[in-house]
């Protein structure tokens, strides 16, 4: 059990050395921390899904409203599900289901490829930190 009055006295002994301007400088420093984190760490938010079939762009879908895109390929139909801020391959006729098992893609640069059916789903954003293939 911490001794609260003692802790408070200890903090007060240090707080004596803080002046008005010091508080301002500290507030500005914290604001800079929060601001820089918001600006530098928000990259990678996707805003568009690019769906390709057979190497050609099949559709560019805005990631703002939920919808389902059905893409025809040599093996059958690949269903791509789009929700606000994310997208996934919901079903694919391919044998190994790699692209389906990748699940939801939610960052710019993420790619899911259904090679047997020649369909790919890629998310693009204002700024992508990396693409999931090269990374």
């Amino acid at each position: 059990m911490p001794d609260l009055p003692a802790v408070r006295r200890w903090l007060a002994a240090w707080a004596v050395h803080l002046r008005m301007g010091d508080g301002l400088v500290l507030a500005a420093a914290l604001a800079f921390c929060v601001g820089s984190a918001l600006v530098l760490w928000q990259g990678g938010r996707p805003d568009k899904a690019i769906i390709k079939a057979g190497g050609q762009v099949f559709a560019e879908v805005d990631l703002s409203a939920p919808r389902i895109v059905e893409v025809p390929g040599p093996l059958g139909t690949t269903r791509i599900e789009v929700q606000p801020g994310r997208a996934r391959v919901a079903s694919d006729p391919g044998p190994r289901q790699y692209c389906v098992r990748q699940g939801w893609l939610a960052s710019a640069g993420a790619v899911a490829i259904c090679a047997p059916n020649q369909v790919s789903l890629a998310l693009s954003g204002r700024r992508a930190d990396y693409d999931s293939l090269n990374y």
Partner: protein
Amino acid sequence: MTPSTTEIRLVPTADDHRVARHAAAAIVLTVAEAAIPLPLPGVKPGLANIVTLVVLARWGWREAAWVALLRVLVGSLVLGQFLAPGFFLSLAGSLASLAVLGAAMHLPRRWFGPVSHSVLAAFAHIGGQLVVARLWLVPHDGVFYLVPVFALAATLFGLVNGLVAARLLDAELAPAAPRDGA
């Protein structure tokens, strides 16, 4: 003994002794700090800056610059970092924070104490280091990804070092004042 005609005699003044004493204290803190394991390279408490702050407040900018730069030089020699990348990062950070301290010390004393000086100098330090890192060591904007972490560390350690410096200064200026139980 007759002095040799080629002998150069250096007579250290009281100022030189004082600079040497303070620099020695700063070097000890640098070496001690190097033993503290830290999760991220580049994030260090910078305890030696407490000495710089105290010297700045008591003896002025010129002497603080001597102490800070001697500390960087000798600290790197002792740790085997001299002329290694870390040395140049440290030097760039120290030069930047000395420049900022030179300006910050003229802020009105009534409102801005050692804590302000410390936080501003800490931010200048990461600024100087990042410029060197970006231009030379990691020529890619990826280095800026860690800016929020460095900024948070600068705020935190700037505050702590500033408070310690302020307390030391108060204790020095009022030696007769009764100490509390701490």
